[in-house]
């Protein structure tokens, strides 16, 4: 536990340190180079900002209007048939479209059922093993002005579905063998 915490704390400073030290050793103008790169960063953020506004409003509306609750209501009986826990469903639906609200839902699940309970574990593993797919695709393609994303949405959603199902199955197996 302590070692892991140490490793994750040191990863970022170490990476920066190594790069800067290497730059010095190889006699580059380190700070000038840094500024050149940093300036470029501003442009990237500006180019993705409109996309983010549009995306956040649409996803926020989906949640606040109650559409997501309705969808969860509809699919729950189907999920019961395949033994997918319906408690996890809101998280599974939100995960690909909204990072902040899926963290909120996952934290809520851990609080309600207990962090180390089966559902708490499932929520943790799902959060750890998946990304906010829609956001990633939107940001990456709009940063360079791409309009057609081909099959990327389907391939990434498939990865999410597989990730979520595997998370649920692995947690089930673990809790029956250890708890």
């Amino acid at each position, binding site marked *: *536990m302590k070692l892991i915490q140490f490793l*994750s704390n040191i990863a*970022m400073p170490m990476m920066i340190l190594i*790069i*800067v030290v290497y*730059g010095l050793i*190889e006699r580059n103008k380190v700070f000038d*180079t*840094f500024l050149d*790169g*940093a*300036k*470029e*960063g*501003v442009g990237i953020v500006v180019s*993705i*900002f409109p996309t983010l*506004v549009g995306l*956040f*409003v*649409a996803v*926020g*509306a*989906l949640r*606040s*209007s109650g559409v997501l609750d309705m969808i969860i209501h509809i699919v729950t009986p189907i999920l019961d048939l395949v033994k997918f826990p319906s408690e996890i469903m809101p998280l599974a639906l939100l995960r690909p479209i909204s990072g902040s609200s899926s963290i909120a839902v996952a*934290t809520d699940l*851990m*609080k309600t059922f207990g*962090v*180390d309970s089966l559902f708490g*574990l499932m929520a943790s*593993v*799902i*959060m*750890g*093993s*998946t*990304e906010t797919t829609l956001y990633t695709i*939107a940001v*990456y*393609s709009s*940063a*360079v002005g*791409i309009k*057609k994303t*081909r*099959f*990327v949405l*389907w*391939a*990434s959603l*498939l*990865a*999410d579905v*597989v*990730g979520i199902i*595997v*998370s649920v199955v*692995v947690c089930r197996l673990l809790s029956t063998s250890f708890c």
Partner: protein
Amino acid sequence: MLNFVWPIFIIISFVYAIFSGNLDSLNSSIFSSTEEAVKLCLSLLGTMCLWNGIMEIANQTSVVTKLTKLLKPLMKLLFPEIKENSPVYQEISMNMIANILGLGNAATPLGLKAMKSLQEQNIDKTILSNSMATLIVINTASIQIIPTTVIAIRSSLGSQNPTSIIVPVWIATICAAIAGITATKLFIKMGK
């Protein structure tokens, strides 16, 4: 993609809100969402500039070439169209290294830099190239050694063993990544 996903989201939610009487919360969410986007962009602005600058330094040193050598077999499999000595090759490698180390803040700027370079070589600037598509799918798969965010949440909630999820997360991420990459390769083969 957003040209059909976005209007669908808007139409469904707005119509549903009218009939279900959730107009109040819809109204407040419209404003809070734009605010959220501004907040995210502001924090992104900082990390984006920092990591773009750091990456610029790295690009002029030999450290990147050394690191990218480690990823060579994986890169060959994932990005057969990219030449090994091109700057894009290094940028993608650095993006994957940042992902693996769990440096989400660094991975996005590095990935976007790689996207920019890939776009320069792209023939039709409105459509994703094969390499760009693969890069995005990899970044949606969240491959990481230590899922720091979740561990932090778990220990803040008083878990007995916050890191117990690491191995399950590995299993789930690897399965997800394999599924995503396989699908990508199949779609490319089918000429989609």
